[in-house]
């Protein structure tokens, strides 16, 4: 564990967290309505996957959790926070495990991240709303999460390759 953050690291965190927040906001602005609630692109995950590959586990966790907290404080409510947090946490854990095995490219990690985000959210909703009926949404969410995750993974993969680690 590090004792103290250097100025460069603080700048790094600030940059990546604000980038993740802007991406969430951009996604929120795009009118994208599908019949099933929870279908989305997950643009902010680009930053998290990037952090997972280029910076480290701890950094990825900090960036993801702070983004969720800050976005919920600004635009959401307690319910929104719980949904987002459960999705983000499960997604982070799954992506971390896949990343650590070293057997998957960012595309696979992204797909798993997208799917597990949806699963985390639907589990949370099932507990909060006390209904098992939401399981009907799961097949659609698994497919949409995979497709969105692949897109995000491809973008993150390109960034990881193109951006020199020393310049981040």
């Amino acid at each position, binding site marked *: 564990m590090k004792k103290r953050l250097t100025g460069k690291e603080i700048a790094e965190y600030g940059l990546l967290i604000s980038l993740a927040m802007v991406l969430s906001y951009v996604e929120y602005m795009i009118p994208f309505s599908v019949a099933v609630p929870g279908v989305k692109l997950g643009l902010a995950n680009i930053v998290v996957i990037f952090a997972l590959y280029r910076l480290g586990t701890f950094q990825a966790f900090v960036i993801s959790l702070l983004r969720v907290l800050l976005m919920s404080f600004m635009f959401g409510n307690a319910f929104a926070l719980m949904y987002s947090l459960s999705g983000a946490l499960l997604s982070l854990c799954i992506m971390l495990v896949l990343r650590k095995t070293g057997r998957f*490219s960012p595309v*696979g990690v992204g797909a798993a991240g997208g799917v597990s985000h949806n699963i985390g959210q639907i589990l949370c909703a099932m507990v909060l709303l006390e209904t098992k009926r939401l399981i009907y949404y799961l097949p659609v969410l698994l497919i949409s999460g995979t497709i969105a995750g692949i897109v995000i993974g491809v973008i993150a993969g390109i960034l990881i390759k193109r951006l020199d680690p020393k310049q981040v």
Partner: protein
Amino acid sequence: MKKRKNDIMLVAAIGFIALLLWLIIYITRSEGAFVRVTVDGGEYGTYPLDADAEIFIRGDGAYNILVIKDGEAAVLDASCPDKLCMHQGKIRYDGQSIICLPNKVVVEIVGGGQSEYDAVTR
């Protein structure tokens, strides 16, 4: 490359699980008998699926129009800005629902089958 192969396997596995889950839901479903409408957690009304009807659901300064036709229920019009409920299509099987979050309206199919959930709530 080996990683690409693993990625494809992973995606295929998720796709397979989704298909399996959908299949299970498809096989175990049963036709419902009633449409239950809840507004903000409170029961608004229950209507039979076999009688065609048009129901005006009045909420807190908001409305949804529910149409029952040919044993299927759908939301025809709504005052909410996103109109998600209108895009959720027609429902007819036990447990299916149309949810309008802004108006806090839940339209769900009940009865017909032996759902454990209904056994608890009744």
